[in-house]
């Protein structure tokens, strides 16, 4: 009989603990902003391209809870992301690491801009040398 009561109590307590499954948002606006920024940058490892902020999957809820815990412990944003990527791989980082494998990615817009500027100057130089032609009606 005592065993049954004990089990019942365990179940009750467990359910009550479950009710506190989602931690309240941080009161400190700066921490709150960091929390939201981080959970948007971490990818749900299971879902079809969603951040852990947007996903309803249980693993996403677990990861949000971990982010909350780490921020409450005073970890930096980079430490939180390191925690996640050391367990789930770089796949869960929506902001790709700046590493040899992503140098091309991060450099590409700037390289494109440089190439584009060169193209622009070359074409402009050629065209400035050409005759302007007669005036035409609109």
């Amino acid at each position, binding site marked *: 009989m005592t065993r049954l009561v004990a089990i019942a109590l365990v179940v009750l307590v467990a359910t009550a603990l479950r009710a506190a499954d989602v931690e309240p948002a941080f009161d400190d606006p700066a921490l709150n902003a960091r929390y939201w920024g981080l959970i948007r940058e971490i990818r749900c490892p299971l879902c079809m391209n969603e951040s852990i902020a947007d996903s309803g999957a*249980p693993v996403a809820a*677990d990861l949000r*809870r971990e982010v909350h815990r780490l921020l409450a412990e005073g970890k930096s944003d980079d430490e939180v992301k390191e925690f996640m990527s050391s*367990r789930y791989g770089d796949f869960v980082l929506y902001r790709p690491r700046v590493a040899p494998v992503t140098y091309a990615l991060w450099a590409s817009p700037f390289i494109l801009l440089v190439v584009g500027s060169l193209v622009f100057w070359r074409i402009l130089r050629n065209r400035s040398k050409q005759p302007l032609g007669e005036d035409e009606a609109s």
Partner: protein
Amino acid sequence: MWRYAIPLVLLAVIAAFFYRGLALNPSYVPSALIGKPMPEFALPTVTDAEAKLGSRDIAGKVALLNVWGTWCVECRHEHAFLLKLAKTGMPIYGLNLRDERPAALDWLASLGNPYVASAFDPDGTVAVDWGVTAAPETFLIGRDGKILFKHISPLTQQVWQRAFVPLIKAQCGAPDPGCPQLAALGAQ
């Protein structure tokens, strides 16, 4: 002028990557823990809340860690195979994820218990340390305590033969108390 061929070349390169991409699975994410020591943990067991199961208990031998839950439909599909494996002497430890003790005990009682012991992880904290996304997932742990392999989805005979056995054989050249009986495995 050759520069007019650039768009065509670009298309060819992109198409080549697409062709290669059709054979890949973009949702499959391999474990980030392969080759690393298993995460340290110590949790109460499912069967006995007083007893503990932790990484220290698993270390020192080739073993499996199987993530399961009563809510997991697919876990039932691999349960029979796990029981068979356990009978050959392969140590299988369980990580019971996001579950409730009574339901878990019920499950083990009615379907059989292949586990040496099962750790009780109701809020998934330890599962996160192992990089678990869902159940069923099975980890192969080496003698040195490093994670050799992770398999997502139910464990079957084919997967066991194809992926796990070669890795175990590589670790276990000669008979060793830390190794499961290879003959029994080979017969599987």
